[in-house]
């Protein structure tokens, strides 16, 4: 039996477990980053982490706050210009998994990170696309991580920033997307996976102590539940202690004061 843990910790651990050793993973900032770094510290030491800032094969010891922290460059196998990440790595078909977050997701795994409300007169203006449309198109597989709530799991997106399974029923495959699209959505309640025929996201697994009703109540469409629901094991002591020390190191690093020593002109 393991220690007490938070729902956030469970979500991050479950997300980390999705990654296989040796995967080449295009990492989104925030929760995806925590999951990927955690995986690389536990069961997937050969996981290759690529951030869109241009850092390839990076092994950060603390989580980056931004997608371009110095930590990512210092621990990378190589740092390349950002356009090369999009042409040679992503569009060139070198990425196994893209790991993304979003503000809204619909039943077919389409994502919105652009705007809530109308585009021209937004209720909430979100940051926008970033690299997500290209990641979701080209990475062979896509994992999504999001807190489950009716605000985020919506019946209809306000804006489709990134194409998941489109209208479902194999539309994405028929259109010849290079990558297969979102294959799992990790939430703070459990896991959703697309139905192989309809592409509709189905609740397939629950974290210990969570219920299907809870998931349905947190979803803006009538969420289907798999006949047989897997139960996800609680975080192991190893996972929890790795995650917590990662978070502690990260907090300390982000709070460390920056002091600048100005350089003078030589000679």
């Amino acid at each position, binding site marked *: 039996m393991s220690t007490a843990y938070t729902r956030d910790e469970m979500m991050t651990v479950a997300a980390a477990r999705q990654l296989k050793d040796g995967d080449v993973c295009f990492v989104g*900032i925030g929760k995806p980053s925590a999951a990927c770094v955690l995986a690389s510290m536990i069961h997937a030491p050969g996981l290759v982490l690529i951030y*869109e*800032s*241009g*850092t390839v094969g990076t092994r950060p010891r603390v989580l980056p*706050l*931004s*997608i*371009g*922290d*110095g930590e*990512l*460059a*210092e621990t990378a196998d190589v*740092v390349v*210009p*950002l*356009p090369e990440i*999009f*042409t040679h790595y*992503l*569009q060139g078909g070198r990425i196994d998994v893209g790991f993304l977050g979003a503000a809204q997701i619909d039943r077919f795994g389409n994502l919105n990170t*652009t705007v809530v409300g109308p*585009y021209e*007169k*937004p209720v909430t*203006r*979100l*940051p*926008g*696309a*970033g*690299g*997500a*449309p*290209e990641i979701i*198109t080209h990475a062979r597989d896509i994992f999504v991580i999001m807190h489950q709530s009716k605000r985020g799991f919506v019946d209809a997106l306000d*804006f*489709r*920033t990134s*194409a998941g399974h*489109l209208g479902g029923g194999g539309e994405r495959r028929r*259109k*010849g997307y*290079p990558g297969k699209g979102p294959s799992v959505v990790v939430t703070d309640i459990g896991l959703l996976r697309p139905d192989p025929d309809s592409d509709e996201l189905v609740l397939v697994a629950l974290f210990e102590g969570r219920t299907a009703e809870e998931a349905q109540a947190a979803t803006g469409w009538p969420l289907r539940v798999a006949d047989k629901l897997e139960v996800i094991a609680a975080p192991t002591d190893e996972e929890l202690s790795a995650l917590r020390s990662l978070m502690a190191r990260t907090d300390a*690093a*982000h*709070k*460390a*004061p*920056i*002091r*600048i*020593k*100005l*350089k*003078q*002109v*030589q*000679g």
Partner: protein
Amino acid sequence: MPAFLSLADAIGRHVEDGMCVALEGFTHLIPFAAGHEIIRQGRKRLHLVRMTPDLIYDQMIGMGVADRLTFSWGGNPGVGSLHRLRDATERGWPNELAIFEHSHGEMAAAFAAGAAGLPHGLMKGPMDTDLPQHQEGRVASVVCPFTGQPLKAVRAVNPDVTILHAQKADRRGNVLIEGISGAVRDAAFAARAVLVTVEEIVDDLAAPMNALVLPHFVVTAISHVPGGAYPSYAQGCYGRDNSFYVGWDAVARERETFLAWMQEHCISKPDHRAHLESLGVLA
């Protein structure tokens, strides 16, 4: 060979009202000092271009220097919204701001095409998103003449001026950039004029053979502005001040606190050194 100018002179001579200006640097090497100088000199109606607007564009937009923004991700990384950018797009304060939005891949293609003298770049799809409805004249469908495959054409971006921060320049004006470079190389080659602020001016760059060096004939002016990327960072010189980014959220949330901060730390200060002193970040 580039001119070696004070930052005030470089901005004064090369950045004019109404110009298309890109301050690039992807999280790393963001030219904050140059952005502040543009604010101090009261430029108006700029068309700002940046993949990630970041705090420097939040500040510039909040101070009313821009009426257009081309970008692909407009947030405070790992923190939340850019409140001044949102106030401009959602409520037109301090002025209306037209936004020309892209994905990162599109912006990279637009800069790369601009750098290569091409009118557009190419991307492979499909990418069924709602963005193209808002990209008229900037994104179009084309067909490969060999395979019949549909492709996306992205119109080139060619700023009037690209402004960068870098670790070093040598006395001939060659510029060395180490670490995360984002789209800076392409933003520089795409521009008609290139202004660079640097941490150091040295006799010898001591660059590795295959480093990222902007040769002097691509650079218009160089200004010695140590600390010029703060609160962004300069690899090998100083780290990113993540706590500043976190703290900015509260400063920028309301117009009054924002204006007061800008007055105290930017407008009333003669230069970047005084700005850094006012923030208490000098060693």
